[in-house]
């Protein structure tokens, strides 16, 4: 079974189980294209590590591809993490801030 085919089937089955219908409504097309965008983006981000070391980039790219196929429908998680709950945003800001501090102070 081709992996792309099965990934698409997985996403479509997941989304139709949430929204109902035969898979061509507004919400489902949006969610599935968003899911594929996230998959591509995760792989792009993994491949960006080639700047430090080219084999590292290749390994991370393969790993990201496997992870994407394994955890396939991540769009609901992404949507949840992007929700406008005040405490969640505060939490993410504090995480971000500590990462920025760690990265920049690491350069000294």
């Amino acid at each position, binding site marked *: 079974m081709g992996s792309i085919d099965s990934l698409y089937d997985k996403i479509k089955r997941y989304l139709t189980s949430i929204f109902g219908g035969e898979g061509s409504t507004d919400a489902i097309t949006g969610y599935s294209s968003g899911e594929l965008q996230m998959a591509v983006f995760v792989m792009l981000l993994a491949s960006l590590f080639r700047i430090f070391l080219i084999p590292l980039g290749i390994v991370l790219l393969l790993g990201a591809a496997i992870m994407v196929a394994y955890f396939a429908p991540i769009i609901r998680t992404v949507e949840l993490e992007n*929700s*406008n*709950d*005040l405490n*969640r945003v*505060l*939490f993410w800001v*504090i995480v971000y801030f500590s990462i920025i501090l760690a990265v920049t102070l690491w350069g000294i």
Partner: protein
Amino acid sequence: MIEISLQLLGFIAATVLVVVGIAGMLYLDNLIKKLIAFTLLSDGVNLALVSLGYVQGGIVPILEPDASIFEFPNEAALIFGPGIVLTNIVIGVSTTAILAALIVVLYRRYGSLKASKVLKGDRE
């Protein structure tokens, strides 16, 4: 006993205020409590900025009529922190007023001060 300078003491108090303020804003559920935590946070920032300008054994940065102009820059505390803090206090008051007004308006709508009820993440 360990000798702690006044500046370090100020930084310690400021750190406590900032940490308490952020923790309060994160963990407390009541909107007015969140507002109080916000005032504590801005107090902590003010204290940190004032402590930044402190000079050990220095004088208040106001030039007396009979003071020496040449020794004044070496002795006086640094002025940049207070310059920011004065504005920061005023901005803190106006932000508090806006927040209080919004809290009152939302209380009239929802009949509750609980952030988990009023501010939960939802889409219209």
